[in-house]
């Protein structure tokens, strides 16, 4: 049996190779993600039978459980899933585009820009007694704007007859450190109450998500994820290096701008609703690479599922393990992700 299976539609006008092993891994990851989704909905302050959960999904569950699941648990879990997927895909794109295994949303300063915007928002719109003078619902918008502005600033500063990956990432590091410095400065200058509120946001949490968040984030993420998967093949070519890619007929600058825009959109959307959840964007693509190989057609979907699993699991642990205390999901993404990643590193040590 060959390693690949070729698939053709419309008399061969659309065709691609399906990596059998990758497809199998993808299927297994999908099962894990789905099981986790159900289990995560079932566990909480009130335990619900997983079968009941499935019934509620089908629309025929008991009233009490339906209420709890649909109004409290589901929006939060869905946000966690979307955020994990978005961050992992964005991280994968950035690593391929920049050709550096350390690239991630944090390194380019995009998350940092959002943090500054959030801390500034908390500081500017608070009155004497630390109460917010405007609605907290504006916070996601502030975070999104911060992320967007910084992404364009980095791109603009890195532009000089085109953008080279190394210049992009070095300027990204500069800007991201500057953003961290500004965040710390504002946290130290402001009252401690604000600092701890900002700290929770910076760690990243999906606490208090509601259906409005889901309705705003879902279409945004879905659109950009589809574009990202469609653009995956251009990353494969970019990974070969600028000269080879240009020689193969790739419009490298245009694609680079396009890819950066996709990842900024995905990151911006997820930091807006979940804060600076770290690790997923950096490590999910590496985990995927060790499971399905480095072709982006297989890597991005696998990374997406791993990202979703990581954030859902982190949130599940965060809200149940120390109940009634809520630990932000961002604390556990690395806590559970890092040991698994080290295990993978160990398993593939001779590869």
């Amino acid at each position: 049996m060959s390693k690949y299976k070729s698939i053709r539609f419309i008399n061969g006008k659309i065709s691609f190779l399906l990596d059998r092993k990758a497809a199998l891994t993808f299927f297994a990851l999908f099962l894990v993600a789905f099981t986790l989704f159900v289990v995560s909905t079932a566990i909480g302050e009130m335990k619900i039978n997983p079968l009941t959960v499935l019934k509620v999904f089908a629309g025929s569950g008991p009233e009490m459980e339906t209420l709890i699941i649909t109004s409290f648990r589901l929006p939060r879990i869905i946000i966690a899933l979307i955020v994990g997927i978005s961050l992992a895909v964005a991280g994968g794109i950035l690593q391929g585009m920049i050709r550096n295994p350390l690239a991630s949303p944090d390194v380019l300063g995009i998350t940092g820009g959002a943090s500054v915007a959030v801390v500034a928002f908390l500081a500017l719109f608070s009155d004497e007694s630390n109460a917010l003078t405007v609605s907290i619902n504006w916070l996601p918008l502030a975070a999104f704007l911060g992320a967007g502005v910084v992404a364009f600033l980095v791109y603009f500063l890195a532009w000089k007859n085109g953008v080279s990956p190394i210049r992009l990432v070095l300027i990204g590091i500069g800007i991201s450190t500057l953003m961290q410095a500004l965040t710390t400065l504002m946290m130290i200058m402001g009252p401690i109450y604000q600092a701890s509120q900002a700290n929770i946001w910076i760690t990243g949490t999906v606490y208090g998500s509601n259906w409005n968040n889901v309705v705003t984030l879902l279409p945004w993420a879905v659109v950009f994820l589809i574009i990202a998967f469609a653009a995956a093949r251009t990353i494969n070519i970019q990974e070969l290096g600028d000269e080879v890619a240009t020689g193969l007929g790739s419009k490298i600058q245009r694609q680079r701008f396009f890819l950066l825009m996709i990842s900024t959109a995905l990151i911006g959307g997820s930091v807006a609703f979940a804060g600076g959840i770290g690790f997923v964007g950096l490590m999910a693509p590496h985990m995927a690479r060790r499971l399905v190989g480095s072709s982006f057609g297989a890597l991005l979907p696998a990374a997406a599922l791993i990202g979703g699993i990581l954030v859902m699991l982190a949130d599940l642990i965060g809200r149940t393990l120390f109940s009634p205390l809520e630990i932000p999901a961002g604390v556990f993404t690395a806590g559970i992700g890092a040991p698994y990643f080290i295990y993978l590193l160990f398993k593939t040590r001779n590869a």
Partner: protein
Amino acid sequence: MLLKNSALRWGGLLTSVLLLLFFMCASIIFGYTETTLRTAIDAFTHYNGSNEHIIIQTVRLPRALIAAAVGASLAISGVLMQTLTKNPLASPGIFGINAGAGFVVVAAITLFSVSSLQAFSGLAFLGAAIAALSVYAIGSVGREGLTPMKLTLAGAAIAAMFSSFTQGLLVINEAALEQVLFWLAGSVSGRKLETLVSVLPYLGIGWISSILIAGKMNILSMGEDVAKGLGLKTGLVKICVGVIVILLAGGAVSVAGPIGFVGIVIPHITRSIIGIDHRWVIPLSGILGAILLVAADISARYVLMPSEVPVGVMTAIIGTPFFIYIARKGFNAR
């Protein structure tokens, strides 16, 4: 590359030493309590116990020396890390050093209510060493031994793990956040001279051996195969470099807390000035790192007078524009 031959390079090195001395003098003179150069000299020659003299001897001098020593150590360990991992984005932080130190200190505050700066120093070194050793161990598994890729990935994973545990402890315990926020941003104020003296042996060994190993680093940077072909014992060199980085960066974090940016930026700036020969890059980056940190520390006193800003914040604010300028001008990225 700005300085193309040996004479110019010696000149550059000398100029930067003079510049460092100038900034250190400035660091001793300027601050909330205004003093003059005259008073500063008197403080050492004709000590009379006045307020100014006490401040200069017990506050300003240790501060200037600590800033210079820490800046130099961070910059040199940054150069070593970037060559070892063959990654221009690497910094001592990639070894998990800052994250490990931060975690142990925060854990000591929240779980065992330790609160003295002296105790932080030893704990930070311990945390840095534990994190770095585990990164090194994980990076070396497998047939090929330590490869840049495995080291980088293991380091990134360990660093992320420790910093997320730190965040977790801080989210649970808000009181600790207030206590540790200043330490976590990195600062050279309020340290006694003894803190520096206790880590100086480590730093000194690190500085000297980094200069001794510079020639070997040049060969290592040509790649594993070439280096081996030229007869370099690459495994041994990598272990030495690892130990030096732990000494330098661990010592720095134990004195001043995690100060980012110096270790990543100064090596790039130095290479754009003096080329890629490690025998020049290592000494010059040490001096430039010291200058950046001393200058940042001076400005940290003035931004929010009379209270102070952590020096880690100022290094970023001062260094970034300069760094972006150099990154745009183009340099030997490696």
